[in-house]
């Protein structure tokens, strides 16, 4: 089951660029939360701060408090421990090219030293089913390389890989932006299915996508969070003029 995320006064920098300014936000557990905004507005940086991927870049840094459940992720745990509790799906599918589909899905377990064959087998089946990919690949799990799948299948495999570690939070950074419409709709269906079990944060530049999958939506602009509210409210009656301009297509 997922946990809620509380963000207080989060600031982030890339070198000298102040990419996130004073973000305060509560992401409820077991729901999907969408983050929208024009490119470069800081929404990707924001999700990368939620599992401390932001700091893998040597010139990047972040301050503030992010609480995941009762854990303050910047003070109570190491980045590695946090990332094990948070699944992440990236903008472009990034399977491990040298691994089979099977190994790709359980890579988070195997690379962390988990060796129980029975549980690994179960996990592959469970997560591929959750990612709606099981039927398509169950016959050549160990025969085919993860990189041999189509783009949409690869992305679903990456979702399965993120789910295999049994995370509490699932971060998705524009998961469908590199995919065709059919694959996109499959991914959206998936998010819809998964959000009752995981806390999902999805970054998207596609407003219809946000409207379709998320209960709550936050609008980012120039490193600041302009507005955060229920998706319905954001799209029908936004409080801020800039949000209204954005969703009505007046810029961005």
């Amino acid at each position, binding site marked *: 089951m997922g946990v809620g995320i509380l963000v207080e006064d989060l600031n982030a920098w890339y070198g000298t660029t102040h990419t996130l300014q004073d973000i305060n936000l509560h992401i409820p557990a077991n729901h999907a939360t969408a983050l929208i905004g024009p490119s470069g507005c800081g929404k990707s940086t924001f999700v990368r701060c939620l599992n401390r*991927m932001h700091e893998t870049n040597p010139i990047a840094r972040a301050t503030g408090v992010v609480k995941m459940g009762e854990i303050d992720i910047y003070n109570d745990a190491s980045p*590695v421990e946090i990332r094990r509790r948070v699944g992440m799906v*990236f903008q472009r599918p990034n399977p*491990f*090219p040298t691994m089979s589909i099977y190994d790709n899905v359980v890579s988070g377990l195997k*690379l*962390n030293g988990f060796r129980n064959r029975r549980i690994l087998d179960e996990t592959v089946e469970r997560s591929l089913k959750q990612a709606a990919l099981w039927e398509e690949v169950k016959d050549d799990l160990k025969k085919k390389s993860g*990189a041999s799948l189509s783009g949409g299948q690869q992305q679903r495999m990456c979702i399965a*890989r993120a789910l295999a570690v049994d995370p509490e939070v699932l971060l998705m950074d524009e998961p469908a932006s590199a995919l065709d419409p059919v694959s996109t709709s499959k991914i959206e269906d998936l998010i819809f299915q998964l959000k009752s079990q995981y806390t999902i944060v999805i970054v998207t530049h596609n407003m219809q996508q946000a409207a379709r999958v998320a209960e709550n939506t936050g609008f980012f602009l120039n490193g600041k969070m302009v507005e955060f509210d229920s998706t319905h409210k954001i799209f029908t009656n936004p409080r801020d003029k800039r949000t209204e301009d954005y969703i009505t297509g007046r810029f961005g």
Partner: protein
Amino acid sequence: MDFESKSMRRNRATRSATNYFVSGLCILATILVILPLLAILFYLIYKGASSLNLAFFTHVPAPVGETGGGMANSIVGSGIILFLASLMGIPIGIAAGVYLAEFGRGKTLANAVRFTADVLNGVPSIVMGISIYSLIVVQQKHFSALAGGVALAVMMVPTITRTTEEMLATVPHAIREAALGLGVPKWRTAISVSLRTASPGIITGCMLAFARVAGETAPLLFTAFGNQFWSFNLSQPIAALPLQIYVYAISPYDEWHRLAWAGSLVLIVLIMVSVTLVRIFANRGALKGGS
């Protein structure tokens, strides 16, 4: 209508002639460069193949004046020295390459290491030879296979470091992020994801370094020293193929010249096979990960 003056037309003719002339020179240069290569290969095959026989691979050198004999001990000796060199040089080289590609991005120290590796690559092999002589042979008081191995290892390190770095740089960053995002520690990501993905390139890079030191003679002159007999003792002088070729080539005996050609052919075949493999790999292009 004639827009060109007479001088312009002449000028154009000169320019065009220069163009053809220079192009011709370039083609001639290319032919001149390929010619010695073909000549060397021709002589190697012509003189070497006729001297190759089973005895070459099974016998030790015959005493002066006797015909026959082979370079079996040199081939095995080269194998032993190269094994020692690889044992020391490959892990250090790969580790240094991993540092450059995975930990040192953009750091001044990494740039300094990279630069030093390139400069070390250009240090003459004879200088490596006398340095290792001064360090090991002088201490041990005799020439040894071990000293030869160390000398070649030192020569392998910079090459392997740079290849490893180049090959790791072809691994898409997104794949590292995928592993890090799963909570895989950085060391495990470097080994099981980056190195594993780049491994075909790194292996061929190591083979290339191996092939290059396999033909080195100068660093072995005062370290491995050479030996006319079988030796498997790492602290004793040992025979090596390039050393034996050198000794035979500058000897006055026809029989030995014959063996030198045969030895060179064996050496070159070994090296060409490695280099060709590298080439095939390079042509296949960088590794494609993700999509």
